[in-house]
Each structure stands twice: as C-alpha cells, then as structure tokens.
C-alpha cells in the first residue's frame, strides 16, 4: 500500500512539474512580439463573421497587422476570459447585454471613442441608446449585428394573416404550434401577450398562468433552430416562435414561411464590439470596429446569410420586400424590446417559473 502511495506521489509531482514547464514556456510567447507586425486579438463566436478568412486577410493587409482569433463558447466564458487575462492579452471582444453591465462596472472594458469611428453615424439611432452599452455618458460597446424573435407561420396551411402574438394562444392552431424551450423567450413573449413590460414584468404569476394555458396547444417545445427547421419542413408544426436569422435561412432553402413582428412587439437582441481595458493597440482596435460596421463588410455578410446589419446604409441596398418581411428596417427596430441585463437572481426565478410551466 505504501508503495502505491509513493507511486501516486511520484506521478503527481512529475505531472505538476511538466505543467509548470509548459506554463513557463507559454508565458514567453505573447511578450516577444514581432517588432514589424502588431497583433490584434479578437474574441468572438466561431464562424461568426469576423473569422472569415477573406475578411481577416483584407483587414490584415490594409493595416499591416496580424489577427489572432480565440473563440468563446458562451457569454459567461467571455466574462471569465476578461477577468483572468493579463492586460494586453485581448484587444477586442463581442459581449452582449447579458454581461456588458458587469464587465463595465468591474472595469474590464475601456470606453470607445466614437469620434474615431467613421461609420458610427450610419448606425440606426435606437442602437446608440441601449442602456447596457454606456455608463456615465461614455460609450463602452458598439452595436454590430442584431436580430429578433417573433412569430413564423406557414401561409399555405395557417389561415392568415396573423398580426398578433395571441396567435400562439389560439386554439385553432392546437397541435401545430412549436413554442421555444427557453425561459427568457417564454417569459418575455407571455409578457408581451399580457401587455406587461417584457424586460421588467410586473406580474410573474400571471405570466406563469398564461404560459400554462399555452402548453397544451403545443406539438412540442423546440430547443435548436435546426430542430424547428426539420419539424417545419416535415409539416409536423406550422406556426411558432422563431428567430429572424433562422427564418431567413429557411427561406433561402426554399421553405414557404412567413415572418411576422406582432403588433404587441417582439424580442430583440444586439451583439456589440467592445475594447478591452489595457489593450496595447487602441488605435487598431478602433479601426477594427470601424471596419466591422463598415457598409462593405455588413453588406457582404448579410448577403451571405449573416444576421441583420446595424448600418442603415446597407438596408437601403437590400431587396425592399425582403427587408419589409424580415423586419430589418427602422420601423421594426422601434417595435422590439431588446433583451436587457438580468441579475442571477432574476434568471434563477425565470428559469424556475419556466420549469414549473413545463412540468405542470
């Protein structure tokens, strides 16, 4: 027995020794920069616009810089990255409202000088006034792309036109509805249906009752966009809650599907670029963000199937019918309630409410 323990100890100490060795080797890397070329480190989702090889190449050539592109798997992970990285490790990141207030308050981001962004003026006005993006008059996050979660239906099988969120509570569609399995969307949608403020609902109990009433009308709750697309294509469901981006993709695949922003409003989200505090390349960081909201990049991406651009000059070049139906115009933006920051307590409460609805 003693011998076994000895073996374990030797192995553990060997393991930790190699681990230390690796760490020491790694530490040297970022602090030995290539003097000719600066490095810009950008944290974003994988396959989300900014890591496109063409885009990277264009920017790298234009500004004589090397882009390093680590990925994040969740907003929470990005927050952890910001907290644990050393100053100068990261330059530009893509937070949304769910972590922005925390990141700003903890001093993890540095203010953006909007005067340095030639394209800032072209951003739709409502996006410049998102509460989570600023603090004490300073702008910390620049909107990049956005989208909405609203109602879709099959115009061939559902008697339309539908213009109200109450359609999801309409017994005429019983067994053909697919609501989304997501506590945030569920609570916000029920709040819209009840005329409450979706970001700050006044009566959670009424919301719970409303969602319980909706439950038996569903065929299922969907979790991933792909899951909904399959059920819709197979005719299992023909009305539901859906994302604008996924709907556009389904249209491109030839699905006959109609996207409606209900008269009561709908849920909206925005992804923003922010500059990390302690960056060694503030100029480059601003140039990168400006490049990301430039008409050229935004137009290319939306035409390749990307989310809705914030640059209003891009919308003007798109097919007006498509813009109208997918709700990409300023009129739609005014009808959306953008998902605001929620405290952990609030999230816990909403999640529990949704769980109670699902297991009612």
């Amino acid at each position, binding site marked *: 027995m003693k*011998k*076994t323990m000895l*073996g*374990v100890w030797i*192995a*553990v100490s060997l*393991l930790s020794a190699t681990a230390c060795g690796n760490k020491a080797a790694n530490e040297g890397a970022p602090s030995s920069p290539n003097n000719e070329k600066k490095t810009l480190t950008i944290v974003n989702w994988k396959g989300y616009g900014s890591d496109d090889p063409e885009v990277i190449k264009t920017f790298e050539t234009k500004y004589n810089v090397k882009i390093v592109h680590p990925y994040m798997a*969740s907003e*929470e992970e990005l927050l952890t990255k910001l907290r644990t990285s050393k100053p100068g490790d990261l330059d530009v990141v893509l937070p949304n409202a769910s972590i922005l207030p925390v990141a700003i308050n903890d001093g993890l981001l540095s203010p953006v000088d909007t005067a340095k962004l030639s394209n800032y003026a072209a951003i739709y006005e409502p996006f410049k006034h998102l509460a989570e993006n600023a603090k004490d008059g300073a702008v910390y996050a620049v909107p990049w792309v956005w989208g909405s979660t609203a109602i879709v239906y099959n115009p061939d099988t559902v008697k339309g036109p539908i213009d109200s969120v109450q359609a999801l509570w309409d017994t005429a569609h019983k067994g053909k509805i697919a609501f989304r*399995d997501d*506590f945030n969307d569920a609570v916000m949608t029920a709040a819209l249906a009840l005329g409450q403020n979706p970001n700050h609902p006044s009566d959670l109990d009424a919301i719970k009752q409303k969602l319980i009433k909706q*439950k*038996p009308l*569903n*065929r*299922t*709750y969907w*979790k991933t966009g792909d*899951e909904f697309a*399959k059920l819709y294509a*197979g*005719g*299992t469901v023909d009305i539901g809650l859906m994302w604008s981006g996924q709907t556009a993709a389904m249209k491109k695949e030839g699905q006959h599907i109609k996207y409606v922003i209900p008269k009561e409003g709908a849920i909206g989200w925005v992804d923003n670029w922010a500059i990390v505090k302690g960056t060694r390349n503030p100029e480059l960081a601003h140039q990168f963000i400006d490049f990301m909201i430039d008409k050229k990049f935004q137009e290319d991406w939306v035409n390749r199937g990307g989310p809705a651009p914030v640059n209003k000059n891009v919308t003007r070049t798109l097919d007006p019918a498509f813009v109208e139906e997918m709700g990409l115009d300023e009129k739609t933006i005014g009808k959306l309630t953008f998902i605001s920051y929620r405290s*952990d*307590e609030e*999230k*816990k409460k909403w*999640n*529990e409410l949704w*769980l*109670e609805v*699902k*297991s009612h």
Partner: protein
Amino acid sequence: MDKKIWLMSPAVILLLCFCVVPLFIMVYYSLLSDGTRGHLTLQNYADFFEKRIYLKLTWKTIRISCCVTLISLLISYPMAYVMVNLIHSGKNLLLLAIIIPFWTSQLVRAYAWQNLLREGGILDIMLRKLHLIGSEPLGLLFTPYAVIIAMVHIFFPYMVITIYLSLEKVDIALVEASKSLQAGPLTTFRRVVLPLSKPGIVTGCILVFVPSLGVFVEPRILGGTEGSVIGMVIEDQFFEIYGWNFGAAVSFILLAIILLSMAVLSRLAKKEA
C-alpha cells in the same frame, strides 16, 4: 502479488485526478451560496427539497428509469437465453450487431427516432402497409412512450451482454442433473438457471437504471411538452443560467439516489444467492 499492484497505478491516478478530485470540487460548489462572495451553506439542498417541482421531476425520472429497466430486462433475458442455448454459430455476429449502435452518438440516435416515430414517419408507413393501423397516425412522437422506446434502445445492450455472460457460465451439468431428477423445463429454469443468472440480471439492471436517471437528450428531443426530467434541470443550471451551486447540489442528490438504488439492487442479489 505485491508487485503487480503497481499495474493499477495509471488507472488509480486517472481516477484520482479526473473523478475523485473533481467530485470534491463539486461538493464544494454545492455547499456555496450564490453571489460573487459565496459562503458555505446548505441552502441549495434545502431549495431542492422545499420546492415541490424538483421532487416531482425526480420522482418522474425514477418512474421512467424503472420502466426502461423493466422493459430492457423483458427484452434482454429471452434474447440472451436464446443466444446462449439455441444458437450455435454466428453468436459473435449477433453480439456485434448489439454493440454497433454504441458507435453512434446518443444525439444522432435520438434524432433518428424522431424520424421513425413522427406522423407519416417510417413506423407509420410500415404499420399502414401491414394494415395494422388505419389512416390515423400513431402519434407516438412527443409522448413519454417515445422517450421510453428510445431509452430502451440505447440501454438494453448493457443488459443483454451482462445476462449473456452470466448465462454462459451456467454449468450444463447442473441443468442435466435437474432434468435427470425429473424436473420439467420450467422448474429447471426457475430453480436452476434463473438463480444462477441473477448476478447478470442485477448488474444489467444497475447498468440500465443508473444512466437512465441522468438522461436529458432523449426527453428533450422526443418528449415534447411533457419531456422535463431531472437531468435537464442540471443541464439548465450549468449551461443556461450558470447556477453551478444549485446544479452541483442537484447532481449530488441524484448521485445519492444512484448509490441507494445500487445498494438495494445488490442487496437483492445477495439475499438469494
């Protein structure tokens, strides 16, 4: 003997580093209160037992798991019995056929079941062609039945293999002795074969019941609006709302249930052996 124990050290180190230590980290999380400066508390465990909904979901999960275990046993025992006693060639091929689905991911198999069970899906078409059902679809998808079918499909091979192994070890001389003492085939089975294969049945039940308690993929994809189980609560806590502390507490309660059920099952095995 003393020297050979060294051979275990890679496994022991792996277990220590990647199983025992993380488990203790999880215990720590489960005892931590929420907020940036958490303190030690039993609140997460209290929350679980105070709110009816978590107990309700746990009970529902246990019921589903019992169903899956029982059905797996009823399917697997005859299959293993036939494979041991009646099939002389091609046994390995059959075993391979049972193991092959293991090479496909659980998620893919759940989606495959969705295609099989949906209205106008493959099962509907087949049954209609055989005139077993009319034009009305079966409507199995998005019901608890769909979840149980998919779970049985995923877990029953464990049961077949363990029962097969224990049946194969049954000494044929004992069966012949029973016959020569005028016992009928049923009596022989009940008094000789069944008791001897009990260890395989118990191991099989554990191997099916335990992972059944933790599933969340099949209920989510096939269960429809009634698909909530306790495994999904844990998944939500870790991936949706970052409630690691509560999620860890629920995991430990599930672990306790698992250990308890294993104790009960192995006690059952010992009693009769």
